[in-house]
């Protein structure tokens, strides 16, 4: 297909994540490291869930289509479960390491758990998005006609938007999840798990990818609002931010310079 499709879909899917990376993470080496470790944890979770699916597939060894699809759905559910487990494992690791960091650097401020929640969520999201979309992207550079057999012709765009929603959702889930762990609100973890299952289940329950996307974006907005309030935001601070009157905004600092 065309280069326009390639670049368009690439930026739709990865633009916000790239912007977040450049503006918030690329400047601090420690955050980059935590991002990559987060990505690694997601990768290991994917490996484990693929292994489970592979074992299940070879053990049942049934070649007919509905069975394969059932196994796939089973694989998806297991994968979501394992991803959330690894998110919890990463939380535990960060908790232990931040205690270690504090003991080593008494003076220096170690990254706060909220920041680590954001970084880890973004790491999970970026890796997840890249793994699900990059093969499709590279195919979009080659020759072909989309939807020639009657499938929807907006396959690339749908996939790109789906990837975007997954990346942002992972980021919000990370924030909410870590906050739930910190405050020992275990129901939060359950809600995150259920939301993740819901988003994944949407893709195979409904064959209409447009509907999937809309529902996923609604979930994204809701989760985003939840993450915003969980990480300390409020309506007032939002107003101040939008009017560029709060102390932390870039414009405020620039003005005072």
């Amino acid at each position, binding site marked *: 297909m065309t280069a326009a499709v390639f670049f368009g879909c690439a930026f739709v899917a990865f633009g916000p994540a790239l912007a977040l990376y450049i503006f918030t993470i690329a400047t601090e080496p420690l955050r980059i490291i935590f991002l990559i470790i987060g990505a690694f944890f997601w990768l290991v979770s994917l490996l484990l869930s693929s292994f489970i699916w592979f074992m299940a597939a070879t053990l049942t060894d049934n070649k007919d289509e509905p069975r394969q699809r059932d196994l796939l759905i089973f694989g998806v559910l297991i994968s979501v479960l394992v991803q959330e487990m690894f998110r919890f494992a990463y939380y535990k690791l960060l908790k232990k390491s931040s205690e270690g960091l504090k003991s080593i650097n008494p003076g220096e401020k170690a990254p706060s758990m909220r920041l680590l929640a954001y970084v880890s969520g973004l790491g999970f999201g970026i890796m997840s998005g890249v793994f*699900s979309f990059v093969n499709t992207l590279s195919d979009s550079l080659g020759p072909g006609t989309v939807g020639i057999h009657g499938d929807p012709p907006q396959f690339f765009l749908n996939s790109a938007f789906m990837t975007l929603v997954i990346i942002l959702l992972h980021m919000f889930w990370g924030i909410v999840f870590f906050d739930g762990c910190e405050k020992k609100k275990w129901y939060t973890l359950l809600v995150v798990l259920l939301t993740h299952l819901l988003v994944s289940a949407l893709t195979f329950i409904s064959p209409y*990818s447009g509907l999937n996307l809309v529902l996923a974006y609604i979930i994204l907005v809701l989760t985003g609002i939840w993450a915003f309030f969980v990480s300390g935001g409020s309506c007032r601070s939002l107003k101040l931010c939008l009017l560029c009157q709060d102390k932390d905004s870039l414009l405020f600092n620039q003005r005072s310079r």
Partner: protein
Amino acid sequence: MLTFMASDSEEEVCDERTSLMSAESPMPRSCQEGRQGLENGEGAAQWVGSHQQSKASGQRGQESEEDHEEDPDRYVCSGVPGRPPGLEEELTLKYGAKHVIMLFVPVTLCMIVVVATIKSVRFYTEKNGQLIYTPFTEDTPSVGQRFLNSVLNTLIMISVIVVMTIFLVVLYKYRCYKFIHGWLIMSSLMLLFLFTYIYLGEVLKTYNVAMDYPTLFLTVWNFGAVGMVCIHWKGPLVLQQAYLIMISALMALVFIKYLPEWSAWVILGAISVYDLVAVLCPKGPLRMLVETAQERNEPIFPALIYSSAMVWTVGMAKLDPSSQGALQLPYDPEMEDSCDSLGEPSYPEVFAPPLPGYPGEELEEEEERGVKLGLGDFIFYSVLVGKAAATGSGDWNTTLACFVAILIGLCLTLLLLAVFKKALPALPISITFGLIFYFSTDNLVRPFMDTLASHQLCI
């Protein structure tokens, strides 16, 4: 042809002290291809050369702590004068994260160059013969035979590397610096001119761009000459780093092309084991090299080590001789395996240059210290990722998984460096992770992701 290239220890002033980094020439790894392996385009010249891979990238984390214990009055902090000792560890950790990123960037760049070339230029994925060091073919009917051949190839290659390394250590011990230096220059000449010419030719062929010989000559000449100057003499640090990255990428591409499939994987595994042994065992050749250089108080072969920062000193304080031992000029334990024809992987050791024990007041400017990584590490990381890209059946997931695994391994190695503060091999952890992730992603994750993608499910 055995060529050793050694940094001219007597003549060169300590690298870390001069503001222009005396570049280290990477040892080009020239492959001696079997006759049948010559591809027609290259003028049928037999490539003879020595693979010298600076593999010795030792991590010498001589951070402040050890010096600090010896003399509490001396501000042996991480290079910042005048800081109270209590802040040392804090600075060490901060430096640690920064140094990790300073190594992530060149490793990533090298891998990007290699993967981009592999994915676009057909030449490096075509089978065109094998090196003379891997004589057994993998075109055998049975799996067992193929495995046996690859193991034999690995044994031959590793033994050549061991012999080379020991020879290098012997030469170094008996102070044959001129010989080593001459060989290094010859090797980097070959790498910078011949391999670049071939690479450029293949890239132009791929994109169907015509270039006349005068332009080509001018381009290659300029590239090579500036490279030689930057690497062996003085040059801007960024340019030197860029040349080292390019040379590592070229070397890795040559390996990717000429090593047969299974042999490449077994060789990668064996090299990591060898690296571990050579750097950590008391009688290991690399360790002996490092210790000899330390005794003599001179840098080992400043060529073939990628250095991530330079030291700015204005008004250098006079070092008191008693502190020399602790100070150690950062040397590159990159050992080029002066392999006659096999590019010995340079021993990957990552070195962090030792902190100078200056009394704080005399140092007029803050020193920026960096970590050094041997070019052999770059080369083998890129070989792993490049092989994943070449054989991954058009799959990017495998390549990305190996990439992340290698970065994590490098991170862990640097963490160990910060803990143990001595020369450490940089290959084992990363290559182990890389291999595990390559095989598992290729066989387990890829079918899963492909099936998901074909049903348009997302996890």
